[in-house]
């Protein structure tokens, strides 16, 4: 079993590495980059919210902060467009992390349900700030120095950087799951007060998890900003982003390591495809996406990963019981 799962990881990695070489259509490459970015976001969202049960519906705070810091840093440092801009990506992640400290201090004061709503409210503060402040360029947004790469090749560097961020996110999430820190997050999810009474410094642990997830999501925002060239407040601070990331985790399996990866890959590519296909049909895309979303949540409430595991388990025990029945039949 263990061996098999290692093989799956390896296969996934190989596919991910060779994909852009095989897939030459730039439109599809673009979809692939977004899929990687969203999967990385979902993975690190889950690393905090999934493990601790503190559902964050304001993850775009990190994404947008990352995107804006990428652009602002590039402009202030007078950088010219090119691969050097990628150095700003981790730096933007750090900025998102730093912004996350005061935000987390306020938001994490409240418990569960109120926390969810607070994250939404704080998200709107950020969206409004980005729209209204001068240094963010207001509704006109910001531009990053032009990147002079050929269209046929343009997305390839983004692809590999996004893949690197995704791998980092997965390793981080797996590492957390195995660490004492991860154990403490899980304990907080199950019974926060009890965890406190067993010496878990819940406030510090929650804030650390929150900020760590912000680092990765901030980097993704920075990559997005670079790839787009131009960012607007309503697209980097997008309520749909908040929900989509959460949905990916619930779709794949909330609190599991693989769930967000599956959720991210399936949903983001599907969403991109639907957007491309139905963009002329206007809001038909909203209806389809919403309906799909409802079906999944209602019929697989614990996510695909858990659903498949249960189904596999039932199947195995059925096989076993039919085998025992068969041997029993022979014996008699």
């Amino acid at each position: 079993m263990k061996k098999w799962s290692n093989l799956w990881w390896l296969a996934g990695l190989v596919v991910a590495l060779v994909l852009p070489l095989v897939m030459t259509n730039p439109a599809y490459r673009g979809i692939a980059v977004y899929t990687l970015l969203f999967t990385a976001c979902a993975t690190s969202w889950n690393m905090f919210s999934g493990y601790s049960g503190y559902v964050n519906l304001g993850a775009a705070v990190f994404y947008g902060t990352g995107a804006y810091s990428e652009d602002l840093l590039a402009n202030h440092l007078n950088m010219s467009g090119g691969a050097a801009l990628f150095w700003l990506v981790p730096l933007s992640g750090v900025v998102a992390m730093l912004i996350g400290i005061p935000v987390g201090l306020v938001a994490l004061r409240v418990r569960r349900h109120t926390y969810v709503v607070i994250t939404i409210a704080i998200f709107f503060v950020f969206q409004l700030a980005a729209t209204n402040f001068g240094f963010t360029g207001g509704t006109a947004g910001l531009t990053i120095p032009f990147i002079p790469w050929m269209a046929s090749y343009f997305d390839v560097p983004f692809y590999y950087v996004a893949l690197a961020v995704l791998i980092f996110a997965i390793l981080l999430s797996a590492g957390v799951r195995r660490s004492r820190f991860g154990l403490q997050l899980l304990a907080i999810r199950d019974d926060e007060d009890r965890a406190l009474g067993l010496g878990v410094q819940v406030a510090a642990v929650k804030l650390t998890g929150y900020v760590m997830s912000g680092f990765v999501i901030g980097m993704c925002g920075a990559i997005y900003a670079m790839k787009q060239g131009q960012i607007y407040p309503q697209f980097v601070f997008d309520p749909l982003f908040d929900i989509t990331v959460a949905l990916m985790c619930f779709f794949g399996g909330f609190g599991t390591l693989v769930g967000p990866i599956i959720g991210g890959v399936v949903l983001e590519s599907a969403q991109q495809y639907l957007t491309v296909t139905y963009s002329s049909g206007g809001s038909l895309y909203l209806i389809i996406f919403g309906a799909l979303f409802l079906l999944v949540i209602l019929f697989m409430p614990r996510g695909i990963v858990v659903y498949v595991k249960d189904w596999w388990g039932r199947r195995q025990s059925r096989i076993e019981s039919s085998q025992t029945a068969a041997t029993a039949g022979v014996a008699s």
Partner: protein
Amino acid sequence: MTTLLSASNVSRAFGGVQALNGCSLEVRRGSITGLIGPNGSGKTTLFNVMTGYVKPDAGSVTFEGQNITGARPNKVFELGVGRTFQLTRIFARMTVLENMLVATQREESWLRGLTRSKSSPRELEAAMEWLNFVGLAHLAKLEAGSLSYGQRKLLELAYVLVANPDVILLDEPAGGVNLTLINVIAEKIQALNEQGKTFLVVEHNMEFVMKICHQVTVMHQGTDLVTGTPGEVRTNPAVLDAYLGGGDETDEELEELANG
């Protein structure tokens, strides 16, 4: 024997209800101290004050001579005061073993938790040892939520013990547990006490209290009424009055108290 943990003149009101009213309690090192009293006399509130879950309006809590009044629950635990809850609290979606591991390191900073694995071999060994002690070792890999009520009580006891606290506060360890298990729990407590552990026990089961406790404090209307050996408490007329006046105790409990 020296005093290990004590509360002096603690008061606390919730809304209009004075749950604790100048209550004092002393737990001596190496003793099993019982805390009894009619329902609503403030026993659990006193527990909550002593373990940092509730801040007192007045009075102080001292542990090993150190004032710990109003300290956070994690701090109190770190110093060496462990407790269980009346309504058992376990981490339902974690395995039995993981439940144990949460408590293994009571003095470790959260920063250290980021860089180390879930458990060291020594912690794992300690966790299994205590699970073995309460007879749950064979269930280590099971999700804790699937345990029975009695097993949960034992698990809660075990994960408090694994942190090696100096004093353990037990809130109704025998509540809702069958007779066989009550005896098992009593034996475990006595065995640990012989190894030097101090206990403070809230319990309604008088037989249990009279059997294991060296000293008993009776609470009534938020204050300590009488403190003495089980024998002294049993024959004290004020205690009987308190129980009769409380009106919500069953006859059997009174009878138990009188006859012991």
